[in-house]
Each structure stands twice: as structure tokens, then as C-alpha cells.
């Protein structure tokens, strides 16, 4: 068990370090990249479209969450394959590979949120302790969900390489099925129903509510996000069952 944690943290730190090897700015990119990216978005929406303050911060938060989701799903998907060299040579709990890949995306998420905090100096947000808790549960849901999806997809990817391209398209579809650039209210009511079925819609909505307008958080919001979290845990458990049943035979398909 002790080695389980050590191996997990070793994979995380190694793969994280490797990303910034051989670049001049190195680790600075962790902050610089989101800072520049969000700066572009922020400037466009303040100067060209003149959107109000809460829209801009909500947009940034939505983009951060959805990018993390996409990144985590794709990292999880390729995780087994990218560690094939090690998997073929030594026995260890294979799910570590998926967990470390997904965790790296959430490390990125953490640094993106630091940048979000920097932007909130210019555009103040209004969060409360309860609001932050709601936001935290939203992030946890995405984490658990991507861990589950990662376990499914990583196994399927070994046998069916097409799933990678397919997922890129699906993730793009999911992005536009989630109110990031638009708000739910802009849509016709019958379309809203379908968009609300997307759990990420709820995640993004409540994350915004908790972090940007914390004083409007109600107890009912927690029931809603609690349900989402339960669904995500169910996906995780199913993914884990699938992973366990298939992974012992995976080595010979690389």
C-alpha cells in the first residue's frame, strides 16, 4: 500500500516534470500559459463585446473546468498505452497509471485556478465559505468522473485506436453542449431541458454560483450537486469494475 502511493506520486511528478524539460522558461509555463490564454479571452470580452464583469469571470471559470475535463479524459485515455513499456516488464496495480494521468490534469487545474485568482483582483468575485464548498464539490465531481471515464477508455483504446479521434470530437460536442460561452437563459426552453441533462452543465453552473456569486447559494444547490457527485461515483465504480476485469489481459495487446 505504501508503495502504491509512492509509485503514484512518482508517476505524477515525473510526467509533470517531463513536460517542461528542454524549454527555456521551464516551470514558469505552468502560470504563463493560462495567464496569456485567459488574458486574450479577457481582453476580447472586455473591449470588443463589452460583457459585464460576472460574465467574464464565469466564462474563465467555465473554460478552466471544461478544459480540465477534456484534458483529463484524453490523458486517461492514452495513459495505459503511454506506459506500455513499463506495463510489459513489471507487475503493479495498473490503475495507478490512469490515476496519475488524470491527477496531472488536476494539477494543471490548480495552477489555472491560481491565474483565475489573479484575474479576480481586477474583476472582484463574491465567494463565501459555503459557496467555496459548493465549488469544491463541483471540482470533486469532475475529478471522480474523469477517473471513471479514464479507466473505461484506457482499456478500450488498447484494442480500438479509433476511440482517440472519436473522443476528441465527442469532447468538442460536450463543450458546446455546456453553457460556457452562452448562458442557459439564452436558449429556447425546450432546448434548455436537454442541456440540463448534461451533468457538466450543472457542475459549471454551480461552480460559478459558488465561486462568483456565493451569497446566492441555497441548500437545494447542494442536493443537486450531491446527486451529480453520486452519478460520478457510479461512473467511477463501473469504470473500475470494467478496468479490473479487462486489464490483466491487456499486456498482450500492446
Amino acid at each position, binding site marked *: 500500500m505504501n508503495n502504491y502511493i509512492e509509485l503514484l506520486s512518482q508517476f505524477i511528478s515525473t510526467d509533470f516534470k517531463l513536460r517542461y524539460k528542454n524549454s527555456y522558461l521551464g516551470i514558469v509555463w505552468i502560470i504563463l500559459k493560462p495567464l496569456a490564454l485567459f488574458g486574450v479571452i479577457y481582453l476580447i470580452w472586455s473591449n470588443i463585446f463589452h460583457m459585464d464583469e460576472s460574465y467574464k469571470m464565469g466564462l474563465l471559470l467555465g473554460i478552466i473546468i471544461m478544459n480540465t475535463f477534456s484534458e483529463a479524459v484524453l490523458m486517461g485515455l492514452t495513459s495505459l498505452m503511454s506506459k506500455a513499456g513499463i506495463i*510489459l516488464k513489471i507487475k503493479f496495480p495498473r490503475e495507478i497509471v490512469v490515476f496519475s494521468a488524470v491527477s496531472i490534469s488536476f494539477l494543471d487545474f490548480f495552477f489555472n485556478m491560481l491565474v483565475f485568482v489573479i484575474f479576480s483582483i481586477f474583476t472582484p468575485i463574491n465567494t463565501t465559505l459555503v459557496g467555496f464548498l459548493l465549488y469544491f464539490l463541483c471540482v470533486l465531481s469532475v475529478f471522480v468522473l474523469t477517473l471513471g471515464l479514464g479507466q473505461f477508455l484506457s482499456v478500450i483504446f488498447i484494442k480500438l485506436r479509433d476511440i482517440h479521434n472519436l473522443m476528441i470530437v465527442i469532447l468538442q460536442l460536450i463543450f458546446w453542449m455546456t453553457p460556457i460561452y452562452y448562458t442557459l437563459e439564452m436558449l429556447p426552453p425546450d432546448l434548455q431541458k436537454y442541456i440540463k441533462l448534461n451533468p457538466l452543465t450543472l457542475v459549471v453552473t454551480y461552480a460559478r454560483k459558488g465561486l462568483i456569486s456565493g451569497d446566492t447559494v441555497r441548500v437545494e444547490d447542494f442536493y443537486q450537486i450531491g446527486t451529480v457527485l453520486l452519478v460520478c461515483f457510479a461512473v467511477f465504480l463501473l469504470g473500475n469494475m470494467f478496468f479490473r476485469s479487462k486489464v490483466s489481459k491487456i499486456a498482450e495487446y500492446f
Partner: protein
Amino acid sequence: MDNKPAIQIKNVRKSFFLPHEKHDTFIEYATNPMRLFRRSGEQYDVLKDIDLEIYPGEFVGIMGRNGSGKSTLLKIMAGIYEPTSGKVKVNGSMVPFLELGVGFNPELTGRENVYLNGIILGMKKNMLKEKYEEIVDFAELEKFMDMPLKNFSSGMQVRLAFSIAIMADADIYILDEVLAVGDVAFQEKCFDIFRKYKSDGKTVILVTHSPGSVKQFCDRAVFLKDGVLHYYNTIDEVTQAYING
């Protein structure tokens, strides 16, 4: 120690599916949808009915030509492949060295690779910190440890990998042709390690093409040919069988 086998392999068969047409594209499926259900290919038995018991403290050599199934057998022992049928039971902790330097990354420094590889082999980080100097001394690479591994010569990489590997503490070691390492002086060091395993009463499975090392270290040897194990009474007979093919 009791007489429970360290490794018990019973009626193990391993077959792989060898597809005849490697590339099945969508167009091919679309023009002939039945292909989806009838994939042409054959089951190929790499290992047929393997029975082998290895007892604690034994130093067992496995010899066989290329493609005879040695690596597959080792991977089954190491738990990387599942046997198609039959059973494998392992009693005690095991470290397989199917390759030296598992997980080594050319972009990382020698030092970083020591920790990466060590932890993959199941060692504790604290233990690696303690043994770090010893590892570097053994590999004779003091000056190079903060250089990226890609700047190491292949001999240096293998030396580093071997020096980490020998720090692994287990009851059972699986060694796949790792004897052919480095220059003569370094090889002698490696042989010392094997002698140490032997005197410590470790169980070792050694796959090698060198009759000399089998004779020198092994208590017992088996000969694997086309997925079938051949047993002989003496090591000389095994090496002879290997030489005769």
C-alpha cells in the same frame, strides 16, 4: 524453510491469437461486414503444458533458442501475462528483471532515473535515499548523475540500471539475459552479486544463452523447445541439448 514451492507452475498453456490479415480498415469491413464476426487468424500455442516447481533457495537456469517461449514463460511467472489455462502460484516477494532500467527516461537526469526506476521496482523512496551513494559507487558514475540520461553511453545506462536493480530486496529474482552487461570487470561484479543471492538463499530463475554461467551458478536447469519443457538429470545434458538445438 518449508518445502512449499516458491514458484509452482501447473499445466500452463499460453496461446496468442495471430491475425492473418493485419490491417482491417473500415472500407474492408464495409464491403464485407461478415469480417467483423469472423476474424481470420489462428491460435498459436507459445507454451504447451508447462509444469515446473521451483523451491526456495534454488538457482534454476532456463535455456532455449530464440522464440522458444522463454520470455513468455518469465512474463507468466512475473504476472504480466495471464496463462490461457493452468495455474501459477508464487510464494514470497518477487522482483522480475525482464529488462534493466524499466521506466528509464532519457530526458531525466541519472539521479531522477534512480528514484523512478527504483520505485517502479518496488523500493521505498527513503531506502533509495539511503542507498543512493552505494548505487552510484557501484555504477562508477559519480560525475554524471546530474546529466540527462540521454547523454549516457549505453554501457553507462546499463551499469546504472544494474546497480539500482541489485538494491531490490526480494525472495525470488527473475533474471532475463542480464548477464551480458558491461566490460569484464563489471561482469565480475555482477557475478559476485549472483553468488551473494546464492549464499543468501534466494530463489533465482536465470534465463541465459551462456552455458558457462548456467554451469557456474545453477543448481538445476531446464531446456525449453517450441513451448515444451525438457527435463534432464544434469546441467551438462541441458547445455548439450541447447547446443544441439
